[in-house]
């Protein structure tokens, strides 16, 4: 793999409360190379958005990065001051959030918001910035961009608004984009448009993208690699094909089985009983063991780290014995080393 653009090492995010610290993100390590899309998938409360927020330095106090480091192009960015981080945010790292209505200011024209962002990060005159804003709107595929530039956000539809948000994230040509559920609020047909757009931008500009979503379908289509998160930790990380077709962690396996598919007409869906533990009550040992059909004695007491090779690994004790999830697959013999 090429030299990673973003490296996260042993990241831990804590929220101090009166009853002690809650650990929202626990010991997460990942890399993203330029031009790569890393999908981060998980259910509500898995800590996926929190990981994204930690990288752009937008964790709301009292939450804080308790330990670990975040390196952008070899430079540590997790311990920068607020002002230094501000310069990086937007310029080096762009962000796209779920709800395009809340990430745009309803009182300003789109042109003003774009020009303002461009001028903050780039040394351009207002006229040049406006020209660039127009270029960006065209790039993200907004029809009649000249006309639309001076519209207010409410005059755009949901899909178009999300395009504006993407244009805003692209203003200063960031090398990394954190996209937090960028298509969740959109209809399927519009979702396909936005995903095609993101993929094109990624390949044309060699932008690295961290795509945070709960939708496995979106990940399957867009991401190169995927990290599956559960209760603040990475359950499994690997190339998207491998993880989807030869899931090694029982959680990933259950998650894949729970997704209804067209064509596969089983009477019932695979069901993972129970729900994700709350942060106040993360079980000992492997956090997934109360819901895991394959849990054995060790899982109740000792927490597994990521086991596997550099490409594909899972934090599951089954990996050790080589009896991991993939065993049900013919290709399972090559898994679980």
């Amino acid at each position, binding site marked *: 793999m090429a030299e990673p653009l973003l490296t996260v090492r042993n990241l831990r995010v804590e929220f101090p409360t009166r009853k002690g610290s809650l650990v929202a993100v626990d010991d997460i390590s990942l890399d993203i190379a330029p031009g790569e899309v890393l999908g981060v998938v998980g259910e509500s409360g898995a800590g996926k958005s929190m990981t994204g927020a930690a990288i752009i330095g937008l964790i709301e106090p009292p939450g804080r990065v308790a330990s670990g480091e975040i390196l952008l192009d070899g430079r540590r960015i997790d311990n920068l001051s607020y002002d230094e981080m501000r310069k990086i945010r937007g310029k080096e790292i762009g962000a796209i959030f779920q709800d395009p209505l809340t990430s745009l200011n309803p009182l300003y024209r789109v042109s003003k918001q774009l020009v303002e962002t461009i001028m903050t990060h780039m040394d351009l005159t207002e006229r040049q910035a406006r020209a660039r804003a127009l270029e960006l709107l065209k790039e993200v595929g907004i029809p009649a961009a000249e006309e639309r530039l001076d519209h207010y956000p409410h005059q755009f539809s*949901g899909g178009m608004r999300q395009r504006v948000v993407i244009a805003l994230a692209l203003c200063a040509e960031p090398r990394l984009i954190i996209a937090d559920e960028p298509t969740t609020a959109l209809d*399927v047909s519009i979702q396909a448009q936005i995903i095609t757009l993101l993929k094109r931008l990624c390949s044309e500009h060699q932008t690295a993208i961290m795509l945070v979503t709960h939708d496995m379908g979106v990940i399957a289509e867009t991401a190169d690699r995927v990290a599956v998160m559960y209760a603040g930790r990475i359950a499994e990380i690997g190339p998207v094909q491998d993880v989807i077709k030869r899931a090694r962690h029982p959680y990933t396996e259950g998650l894949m089985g*729970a997704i209804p598919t067209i064509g596969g007409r089983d*009477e019932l869906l695979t069901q993972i009983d129970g729900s994700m533990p709350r942060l106040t009550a993360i079980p000992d040992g492997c956090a997934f063991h109360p819901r895991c059909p394959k849990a054995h004695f060790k899982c109740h007491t000792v927490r597994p780290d990521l086991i596997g090779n550099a490409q594909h690994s899972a934090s599951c004790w089954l990996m050790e014995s080589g009896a991991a999830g993939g065993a049900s697959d013919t290709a399972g013999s090559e898994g679980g080393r």
Partner: protein
Amino acid sequence: MTDALLKVDNLVRHFDVSPPWLNRVIERKPKSVVKAVDGVAFEIGRGETFSLVGESGCGKSTVARLVVGLYNPTAGTLEFDGMDISSGTARSRNRGAQRRMQMIFQDPYASLNPRWRVIDIVAEPIRFNKLVDGDAAIKARVGELLEQVGLSAADGEKYPHEFSGGQRQRVSIARALAGSPEFLVCDEPTSALDVSVQAQILNLMKKLQRELGLTYLFISHDLAVVYHVSTKVGVMYLGRLVEWGETEVIFNAPRHPYTRMLLDAIPDLEMSGRSRTPVAGEVPSPIDPPSGCAFHPRCPLATDRCKAEAPKPVSVGAAMVACHAVEEDRLPEWHG
């Protein structure tokens, strides 16, 4: 079909969204009307699951609300087991029909009263319909219902905030079952839930259907979920059904260009390398829908006739389709 539990014919619901009278007079603004549902007809047989699918704003939730009587239709008829429930007066005449249907809503955070204990929430339909007498009997019945949906009877003492999203949706289902209905209208029951919890709820709904012989009207925007649960599917676009029929037929041999577009837009989990065809354009505003066939601005097969004339549904094979291209037999082969 003879054994239809619900018959919907030419159902229409318009909403008046005109500016206030004074503005209309001074600024000469015209009256404007949203045609949320504009001539929908279908039947649901006993024990079936009929799903309505479509993008935001296509009117699918409005149909659900019309069926349970939360809105009154502007025109058209609704018939439940032979009883007329088309208007408020007809409904009060046929209270029996009303009692046999219940609704499950999308957002389990908004549809449960946060100040009530679960036992009171679930007992409300029982008390209202006087199905069981005496507090002890009601309590026993609620416990039974909670166990039926996978909670424990002791959960009745808790408040909604003590439950997760999936558990709350189970409470909503228990409440809907409390009136012993035969027919449930489910408006996006799982779209606020995570996939693993969605699987639990869908499995539960199937189990209940088998055990209690329920009939469902299922509203969803998620085609995969719809495929999984339904026996029949109707695809809606801007207030009209564009194609409806048996699930297998609609999914394996879709005919309407909009159905094909929706199916093409689903992310491919198997990663067979099929490229997803992004669709141009968005759903137009229902205040000012396009002339002729409402789908023509986005349709790859649109002709002048489509711009001028609204297509009538025709029966093709085992499905009903409203499309000129189908009628004129100039539809390309479906790749699926």
